[in-house]
């Protein structure tokens, strides 16, 4: 043999089945209905949207009551993404923000559009822009992005505790 074999390529293909689990059902059905449904913790009374695993991670108990939140919200913090990577489907540069929907106590991560990246601010008021109804799935990707509502920015005190 004249050539050394230094590397081999071994493709790995595995199919997985992922479960949302029963406790996020009402939230996912809500998204199919154009609504943001969260759940309230019976112990600390805070509202989680989405209700990850249906639990309050802090109290270690199952979330109980369904609570509708939003649709508008406040940007608590954000970044401007400028780096391409495999699997990314959005054109760069884009703004990824944490948005605290009105009535929710936990922010969600989503995109901000219809505003220049350098004009996005912490405290900016935003609202969702939904995909066409026929494209809806049980997923937060039913919202293409959030855009400014034009309202005055929220006071720092109203969201500072969520940073």
């Amino acid at each position, binding site marked *: 043999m004249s050539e050394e074999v230094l590397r*081999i390529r*071994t493709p*790995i293909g*595995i*199919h*997985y*089945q*992922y*479960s*949302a*689990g*029963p*406790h996020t059902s009402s939230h996912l059905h809500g998204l199919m209905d154009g609504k943001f449904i969260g759940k309230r913790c019976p112990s600390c009374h805070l509202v989680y949207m989405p209700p*990850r*695993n*249906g*639990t*309050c*991670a*802090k*109290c*270690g*108990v*199952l979330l109980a009551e369904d609570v509708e939140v939003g649709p508008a919200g406040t940007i608590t913090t954000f970044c401007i993404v400028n780096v391409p990577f495999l699997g990314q489907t959005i054109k760069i540069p884009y703004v990824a923000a944490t948005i605290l929907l009105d009535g929710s106590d936990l922010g969600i991560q989503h995109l901000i559009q219809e505003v220049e990246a350098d004009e996005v601010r912490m405290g900016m008021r935003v609202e969702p822009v939904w995909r066409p109804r026929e494209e809806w799935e049980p997923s937060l990707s039913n919202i293409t992005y959030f855009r400014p509502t034009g309202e005055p920015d929220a006071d720092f005190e109203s969201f500072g505790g969520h940073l």
Partner: protein
Amino acid sequence: MRDVAIIASAQAPNLVSTTATPVEMLMPVVDQALANAGIARSEVGFWCHGSCDYMTGQPFSFVSAVDALGAWPPIIESHVEADGAWALYEAWLKIQTGEVDTALVFGNGRSSSSDINRILTLQLDPYVVAPLWPDDRSIAAIQARACLEAGIITPQQMAMVAVRNHHHALTNPYALRKGDYTIDELLQGALVADPLREHDCPAHADGVTAVVIAAGDAARSISAARGSRPAWIRGIDHRIDTQNLGNRSITSLPSAELAAAKAGVGNDKVDVAELHAPYTHQEVLLVAALGLVDSPDSSTSINPSGGALCGNPMMSAGLARLAEAASRVADGSADRAVGHASSGPWMQQNLVCVLEGE
């Protein structure tokens, strides 16, 4: 060395598959284990768990388990990419250092997320073995074939193991497969990976096991308050063999033998042995490696739970064997029990734990 005991445990019924998330599966079992121990979350000194990213199909998949624990205020917690039995070992070590007195350990996993037999292929040498994609059954079958050809095992013995475990499983509410069979009817079954038949292969399952351990006085007072007997860990050890087929005999289990010797299995009689042998031929090898006797006259009861053959929730099946062995000591049906956990192809890695009542 500090005296440490298993004082409580809980298991989820093994399911062929569940649509619950790992967190949803875990929460009730953790709650039950705490309730069985009679302690609150805040009284747990250390949390340790075992699970596997490739099984879940997600990197960092253990992180969501932390969300099931009510980890607030922040907790002392750690994770092993292995069966929960190894999480128990880490917790036992930590208690030995004196840093904590109690620990809750668990293992969880959903074998149904994917084709578990194929996932396990990824444990093999990535350069020369895994690319051939021998699945887990084929790997086990190679070992069974070697044992048959060496005259160590007969198909009847393998079927007997299956008959015994399925019968025992009738009284185990967590087991997945159970029933009364005869050797002859099992041997009629089709080969799935020659020489293995369906009954020789584990019933893969989704499941969770949680165990509470505590040191000395804490174990005594907690158990007394619950009216149960602590299962004292008198010996615990784990060892590993090479995975290289050319370098090891697969008709014996050297690491299991060594771990059993280090844990002191042979120091006294063994009333109950709970062995994590997913395949029937492996149970036969393991009994020999641990120096146990498997015969009608023997006073050792092998796998009264039905073992991993009748319910193999990967990442918690080993811990479940330790929990079952401890339960036999706790309820008084055994004074001395052995719990065993295994990992890797051809029972590559083995953990042995000797438990005694006071």
